[in-house]
């Protein structure tokens, strides 16, 4: 849809896969030039429930390269308020991608969240089952 026609820079949808299963998409994303992630390639997986758009999609990083970032856990889970608490049905996939790119772009130091090893061991496979604490909007 609009993401196919006018995607944010560095973003493409895996069309073949989206065609086989409409409720599951993979989006390819490139680190923006001039940022710590320049030249890196990532994959984001979107899962849509039957309640979408009133229920947010489940969005995680998948594949070999999970961005090293203070809000991204090594299992691909992302701590971003619009994906749970602050989800609005008016947010498009495009808007989510833009938020994630901007989160990556404003990062000043590549590191994992401080509670990464504990969280990855204890969390559910679905990040929406975590009650996230959002505290830091600066990175």
């Amino acid at each position: 849809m609009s993401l196919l026609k006018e995607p944010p820079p560095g973003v493409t949808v895996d069309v073949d896969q989206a065609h086989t299963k409409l409720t599951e998409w993979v989006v390819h994303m490139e680190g923006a030039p001039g940022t710590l992630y320049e030249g890196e390639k990532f994959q984001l997986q979107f899962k849509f429930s039957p309640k979408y758009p009133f229920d947010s999609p489940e969005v995680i990083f998948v594949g070999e390269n999970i961005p090293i970032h203070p809000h991204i856990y090594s299992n691909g889970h992302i701590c971003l308020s619009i994906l749970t608490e602050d989800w609005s049905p008016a947010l498009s996939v495009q808007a989510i991608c833009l938020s994630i790119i901007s989160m990556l772009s404003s990062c000043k130091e590549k590191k994992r969240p401080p509670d990464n090893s504990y969280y990855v061991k204890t969390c559910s496979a679905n990040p929406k089952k975590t009650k996230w604490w959002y505290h830091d909007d600066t990175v």
Partner: protein
Amino acid sequence: MENNQTADSEETKSCEYDPNVNQDELIMAQEKQIAEEIKANIAMVGELDDLSSLEREYSNDPVYFSKVATLLPKFSNVRRTRPDGNCFLRGFIFAYLEYCIYHREELTRFKQYLEASKEELFEMGFPKFTTEDFNDMFMEVVTDLEGSGSIDRVEAIINDAGTSDYLVVYLRLLISAHLQKNAEFFSFFIEGGRTVGEFCKQEVEPMYRECDHLHIVALTAALGVGVRVMYLDRGEGSSVVSHDFPEDKDPVIHLLYRPGHYDILYKA
């Protein structure tokens, strides 16, 4: 005494933190269960009830009971809404569409406003693909009411989750747009060191976020629709305080506020 202590310690034991159980999942499961119960038992907008039903509700509460009594000569009926954080918006749009059915010129005006609002939202950077979808649904509803418009139809529309939630989302976008257009003014009323934009992302655009004073000021100003809210609370005095939004407009909708919740009132 001793019995009490045993009971206490047992209770503490059953609530003890179990590291093998995912606490987040427990909390969320419980929140979900409460929401599901409300959903199963209370219609999004209920049937027309006699105002005396409010008196019965407070037969054991002298403060509320005497305040409800002062509402009785002015209002005859109440329609209860589901307490899910969308109650103001659902109550508002129900009462407004009901008003429009009896005032067709207002329905025409509202339709023109809706049509124009879409472009304005696009210009302000709201996601086109989704915004259009919500606007389309609203236009469909208004067009439908232009034709067959009856109160039964409004009841059916607002109690159909698929439709009703779309209308609620679009009203949230209209509020957000109005707040952001007048950000300089509204910034003085926002708590917690947040910008107007951040406030909209956190408190306006997400579903189920309760509507406060600011939301109501913005919505009524954006739509140019007068709302009178009757505040039923434990505040001083024996009468119910009312407030008109916007102040200079004759109210066409009356809502009853009780801490954290809005229902629709009907004039006698």
